[in-house]
């Protein structure tokens, strides 16, 4: 209980001393904020803190539709994370551990269930807090700063210089797995980022090693890759850093145009940016770890390259195709270095979650979600532009329309149950 009170003290103190910061955070990341009026002069942002449950309350498990009770003696805490119709969406902790799932409850339950007495005690101390007596402690504990993805190189990848070759004359699999815990050949450079230009050859070697690893033993009698087996092998045979790398490289290869090159990797970088954004959005929405860019890439139907009847996933993954990955690898390398991947407009680009080819009918009506169409640039180059990188020609696979807010303020709504079962 002391721990809980301390944690809540910190949150409430944070609210008291940093209201301007909070307003700023809300404008950066629009979402409904739920307040409770403590009295006429003071309101509490319920979206910011877990509050102990001291009276048993009824909640709805939105994954099953079943109602359940949070019994007061069982050490529950709840936090309001949004609204749905006339209900609150809540997160629940039991014994200090988050409960999996999605939950709803009536606002009245929040009012009657939580420990307002504890809150009151804290509020009574606000004057001291405002004087800065616990300022250092608060600063240590409260701000949640998004961390750079360790092994996920920042987004974008270059495009292939595809040299498709016949599958005739199949070579036998010669895959030798690395020792446990070791990287596949060439992939060791993924461990430290940003990646230097001198290591580009290593990255190319890593692509090749990964292709061999995930295709080995996963062909049918005709020598064609088995989609389900290959997708599963991407998780089972690769280290997390290699999984993310594979997600970036193969998606960018399949999704971007053939003009992507080492000199002009921008379109591939754009695809990687979308992957990177979606990963962050999914984690923000509670995607269960381990979750990385490969999960994002292989999420069914999202990136058309990976559709079962689309030949591009095989083109991207099959080592027998002998593709030129130099442009894609360069895009990946640049994405690991913030100085080589400067996006404009920066605020919009961090929220881009969807794109589609221009020849497709618009599947995401903008009326209800305030969808925004973005015109991006990276390092001053429009990644969609034909004129800057393709001598004014328009690619046969079209031009991308790029969006934020397709699913409202969350941009892209991550759902566990529609995620692929490849792990």
């Amino acid at each position, binding site marked *: 209980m002391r721990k809980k009170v301390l944690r809540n003290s910190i949150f409430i103190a944070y609210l008291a001393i940093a209201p301007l910061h909070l307003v700023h955070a809300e404008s950066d990341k629009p979402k409904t904020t739920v307040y409770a009026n403590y009295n006429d002069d003071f309101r509490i942002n319920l979206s910011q803190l877990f509050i102990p449950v001291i009276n048993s309350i009824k909640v709805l498990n939105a994954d099953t539709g079943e109602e359940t009770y949070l019994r007061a003696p069982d050490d529950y805490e709840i936090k309001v994370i949004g609204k749905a119709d006339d209900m609150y969406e809540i997160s629940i902790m039991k014994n200090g551990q988050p409960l999996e799932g999605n939950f709803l409850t009536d606002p009245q339950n929040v009012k009657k269930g939580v420990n307002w007495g504890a809150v009151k005690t804290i509020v009574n101390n606000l004057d001291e807090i405002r004087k800065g007596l616990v300022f250092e402690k608060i600063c240590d504990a409260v701000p949640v700063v998004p961390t750079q993805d360790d092994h996920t190189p920042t987004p974008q990848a270059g495009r292939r210089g595809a040299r498709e070759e016949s599958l005739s004359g199949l070579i036998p699999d010669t895959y030798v797995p690395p020792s446990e815990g070791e990287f596949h050949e060439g992939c060791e450079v993924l461990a430290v980022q940003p990646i230097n230009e001198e290591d580009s050859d290593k990255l190319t070697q890593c692509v090749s090693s990964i292709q061999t690893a995930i295709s080995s033993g996963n062909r049918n009698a005709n020598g064609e890759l088995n989609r389900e087996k290959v997708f599963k092998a991407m998780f089972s045979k690769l280290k997390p850093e290699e999984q993310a790398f594979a997600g970036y490289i193969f998606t960018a290869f399949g999704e971007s145009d053939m003009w992507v090159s080492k000199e002009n990797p921008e379109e591939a970088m754009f695809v990687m940016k979308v992957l990177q954004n979606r990963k962050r959005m999914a984690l923000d929405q509670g995607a269960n770890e381990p979750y990385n860019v490969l999960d994002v890439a292989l999420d069914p139907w999202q990136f058309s390259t990976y559709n079962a009847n689309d030949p591009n996933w095989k083109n991207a993954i099959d080592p027998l195709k002998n593709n030129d990955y130099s442009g894609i690898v360069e895009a990946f390398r640049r994405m690991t270095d913030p100085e080589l991947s400067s996006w404009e407009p920066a605020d919009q680009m961090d929220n881009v979650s969807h794109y589609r080819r221009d020849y497709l009918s618009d*599947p995401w009506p903008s009326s209800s*979600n305030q969808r925004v169409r973005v015109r991006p640039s990276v390092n001053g180059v429009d990644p969609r532009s034909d004129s800057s990188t393709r001598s004014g020609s328009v690619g046969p696979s079209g031009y991308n329309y790029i969006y934020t807010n397709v699913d409202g303020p969350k941009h892209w709504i991550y759902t566990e149950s529609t995620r692929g079962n490849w792990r």
Partner: protein
Amino acid sequence: MKKLAFITLLISLSFNSYARTYGERSSDWKVIKGDNGYYLKKLDPEPKMIKIQTIGGSPEVQEVQKKEEAPEHIFVVYKAGSAGTSHIVTAYRAVVFHLKDNKFIGDLPLKYVSQQGKDVTQPTWKFSMGKLVVKDPSSGSEKTIDLR
């Protein structure tokens, strides 16, 4: 007095019967947009809600289906959004609901439709021995629902 009791019984039965059949029309269902996702709500004096899925964009209720193999259940079909970059696919899913028990049983992939009219790998539904097994090769998933 007997008459009054009889009328009361009739009214009560009538209300009970009404409650059990609530949900059979698509207008009995509504999609609610929350801050953290979408929900299917049964518009009932005692509403029921369940979180539903989208692969991109807002879901919409399409129709309520009944199936011979599961006479006590209804299948609330909803459009579960669209996704894709060079090939747009719209997903349709079905929330399985047990009318008598007033209970959600599951949320299953039903079909996929290509905007460009291409062939798309479809989920398979198989009813057997009081169970429904749904396999979806696009996501590698397999789900079994007990219908008894």
